[in-house]
């Protein structure tokens, strides 16, 4: 069920919040044992639904069951970032986005699985469990917000919050066949988001329709005094101003992102371009010369920031502490060695190295980031929207093994957008040879979320999203 549909039923008293919650709990009883989307499922969902029933409001999120990725802090509810390090961490505060969802009357179902601290693209880097793709359990759900994507796709939540540092809401949305928005960096407050790479981290909604994305974005976006980097620009009303439109839009399709893509993905993008032309858009090929630096720059910058952001987990104040140790240094080393997974350690080592001895590597990556930003700026002089595959590769199987560098390379389409801080949506568009979803990425200039949502809605209403 979609959020806007459920909201309509709730408003007309055709269903009550507890009844809706029961429906979702039924789906969880049916599917969660296989999908394993949740690290924590709340034990008071029905009580919260009854409480919502007593406190009716006008919000379209009133009484709507939603899931929250487990790296977003929830007051009194365990928040682990899928790491042994925070296995027992219960935050004394709500993230601003969670606070805002609660104020709207949404009901938090639980905390979804992910790659540890958001570092990964298949949700296999979780310290606790492996989530599978609800479309076909033999495939990965993508990551790092794989639990959120799987929960939404399987109806175990009507909508979910994910987080995106280099593609982590867009790619799992693409793999699971759901919609997702990665907002402009600074549009949504990061307060309460367990930091991976602060200059890239974004919280974004994942849902089964574009309208649902708009409803959730309306709730979570906007300035927050607790996040000094959050934008002070006036709040928009995405849902209210939502209207399917691509007519007259100038759309660029960057060649570099197609050349390296899998055959079925390339075909899907070409098909989408044709579809857009049919709907009245102008479509042409374009170049992003700096795209070749995107993956390296992304991994160096995000790992550098992560090496700092994860330094607070030293076993002193909270989180995991090794059982036996000699002194502070020993405790710190043992706690971190025992509680961090291998991918997290890899990134900390990479980031520490990149920042060492004057930080030459880090500085070169920042230089590349500037080039990428400039390339996009130039593109937006000529285009309104950039169309790319969300992932250049088809959804891999759960048991597929791939080399680290190959795995990192697959982030090219999404990571470049993250480095430039731009907004992007994932639109489910087609199926690959295995019957798994293929997603399109629509990228806009800073703060053009409304235009992107409108364009995505054209696809959805054109019947493209039903994969």
């Amino acid at each position, binding site marked *: 069920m979609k959020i806007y549909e459920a909201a309509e039923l709730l408003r007309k008293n055709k269903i009550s919040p507890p009844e809706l919650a029961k429906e979702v709990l039924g789906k969880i009883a049916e599917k969660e044992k296989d999908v394993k989307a949740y690290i924590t499922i709340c034990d008071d969902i029905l009580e919260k639904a009854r409480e919502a029933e007593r406190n009716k409001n006008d919000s379209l999120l009133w009484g709507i069951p939603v899931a929250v990725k487990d790296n*977003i*802090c929830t007051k009194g509810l365990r*928040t682990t*970032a899928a790491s042994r390090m*925070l296995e027992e*961490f219960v*935050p*004394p*505060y709500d*993230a601003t986005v969670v606070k805002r969802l609660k104020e709207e009357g949404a009901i938090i179902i639980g905390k979804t699985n992910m790659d540890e601290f958001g570092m990964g693209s298949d949700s296999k880097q979780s310290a606790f469990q492996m989530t599978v793709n609800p479309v076909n359990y033999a495939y990965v759900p993508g990551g790092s917000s794989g639990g959120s994507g799987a929960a939404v796709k399987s109806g175990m939540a009507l909508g979910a919050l994910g987080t995106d540092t280099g593609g982590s809401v867009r790619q799992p949305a693409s793999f699971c066949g759901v919609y997702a928005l990665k907002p402009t960096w600074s549009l949504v407050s*990061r*307060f*309460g*988001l*367990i*930091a991976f*790479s*602060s*200059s890239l981290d974004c919280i974004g909604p994942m849902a089964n329709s574009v309208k649902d994305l708009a409803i959730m974005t309306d709730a979570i976006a906007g300035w927050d*005094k*607790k*996040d*000094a*980097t959050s934008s002070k620009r006036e709040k928009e009303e995405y849902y209210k101003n939502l209207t399917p439109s691509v007519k007259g839009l100038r759309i660029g399709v960057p060649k570099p992102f197609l050349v390296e893509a899998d055959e079925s993905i390339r075909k899907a993008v070409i098909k989408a371009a044709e579809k857009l032309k049919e709907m009245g858009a102008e479509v042409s090929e374009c170049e992003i010369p700096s795209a070749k630096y995107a993956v390296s720059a992304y991994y160096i910058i995000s790992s*550098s*920031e992560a*090496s*700092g952001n*994860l*330094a*607070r*987990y*030293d076993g*002193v*104040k*909270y989180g995991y502490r090794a059982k036996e140790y000699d002194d*502070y*240094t020993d405790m*710190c080393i043992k706690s971190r060695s025992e509680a961090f997974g291998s991918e997290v350690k890899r990134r900390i080592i990479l980031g*520490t190295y990149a*920042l*060492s*001895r004057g*930080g030459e590597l*880090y500085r070169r990556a920042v230089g590349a980031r500037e080039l990428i930003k400039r390339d996009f700026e130039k593109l937006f002089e000529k285009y309104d929207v950039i169309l790319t595959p969300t992932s250049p590769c088809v959804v891999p199987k759960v048991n597929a093994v791939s080399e680290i560098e190959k795995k990192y390379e697959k982030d090219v389409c999404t990571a470049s957008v993250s480095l430039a801080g731009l907004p992007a949506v994932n639109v489910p568009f087609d199926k690959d040879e295995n019957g798994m979803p293929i997603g399109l990425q629509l990228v806009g200039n800073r703060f053009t979320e409304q235009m992107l949502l409108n364009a995505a809605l054209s696809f959805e209403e054109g019947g493209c999203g039903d994969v």
Partner: protein
Amino acid sequence: MYEACIGLEIHVELDTKTKAFCSCSVAFGSEPNTNVCPVCMGLPGALPVLNKKAVEYAVMLGLAMGCKINPRSQHARKNYFYPDLPKGYQISQDAVPICVKGFVDMGGGIRINRIHIEEDAGKLVHGGVETLIDYNRAGVPLLEIVTEPDMRSAEEAKAFLDYIKNTLLSLGISKCRMQEGNLRCDVNVSVRKKGEDRLNERCEIKNVNSFSGAVRSIEYEIKRQTELLCKGEAVLRETRKWDDEKRQSILLRKKEEENDYRYFPEPDLPPVEVDEAWLKEIKEKMPELFYEKALRFRKDYGLGDYEAKTIAENKDAAELLDDAVKEDADAGLCAKLILGDISRLVNEKGTRVPFSGHSLAELSGLLKRKEISYTAAGKILELMFESGEEPSVIARENNLLQQSDEDALIKVVMKVIEENEKSVSDYKKGKKNALGFLVGRCMRETGGSGNPHIINEMLTKILEVEE
């Protein structure tokens, strides 16, 4: 034949109400870990928000030290592990500090390299087998002042430290309490042959906890390095720790063991923008500096160099003087009282001046009109420190007013003239100092309360007429 090149790094704890990046109190001496919150404890997801007051104070100090104020400065993370550092990094400034390139006109001129804003760490409390951590101090705003190696002796360094302290006190931006760690400094010393331009390798001396400690450590270090050079040995770049009890420094770490702090721009904080309008507002708010005060005291009050400087350097004293002069008191008389009996009493009693400029004006008025003697003024001040009573009341109640009424004094004067014929005739013969003897007699007759000046005038008048 050798000369020292001394540079200082001074850390100043600012006297703001709240911490640098959260709204916790900076109060000293609270119960351990009571002035803390998720931000200053470095909890996952918590974000820093810069205290505007700290920026204002930094700009004030920058202006006072003749610095250029960067319109856009940037915070940076200084990464290292230590149990008192909650986040595993200190938020500081690196490449673009808020104030740069200042100059202080002392000795041969002391250049200020930079002043930047950073946060303090917590405090380790060692007790028995355990070490506990108090995070109350974590996040307290600090300014770090870095000078060029422009001081040539320990005395010059001491004078500069005094200058900084006086500047901070007159700006009212730090309490400057050494015992509470409000002012801490690291010393950099190198020694070279006189006449050489190039700087030799320097040693940094940490743990200098007082100004006198700074002087001793510099003297020690100059001697140590000079001896090495005389023996033909090289001074190696190293960090040393000062032990003020043993009066010696010990090797802490060699150059190759120095921390690599892996600085990078703090992504959680936007650049600090100080635009023209804000700069103007801060300039207008800036209190008069001690050297500006000294100049005014000389020019407007006609005080001598020493008087002006000494009073200007003491905020209480300067305020007292200004307040008294506002009530038309004689500035010179007030200055004399402040530097004399008032300073003595402040030192003896260990308190601040317990009365206002109004009272001082009244006291100086009594003196000026010769209603009391200097000796009586001292006695009155002593009683003012005890009771806080107004000077005229004290003078009256304690019979300290001088007898100036000629009608009352005439009897005494006539009596003394009659009883001291010899002195009278001596005077008339031209022995002018006989007059002093007669005045003394009159004073004895009045029990000390006669106004010697009036008596003198009366005697002269009578004796001249009798001739």
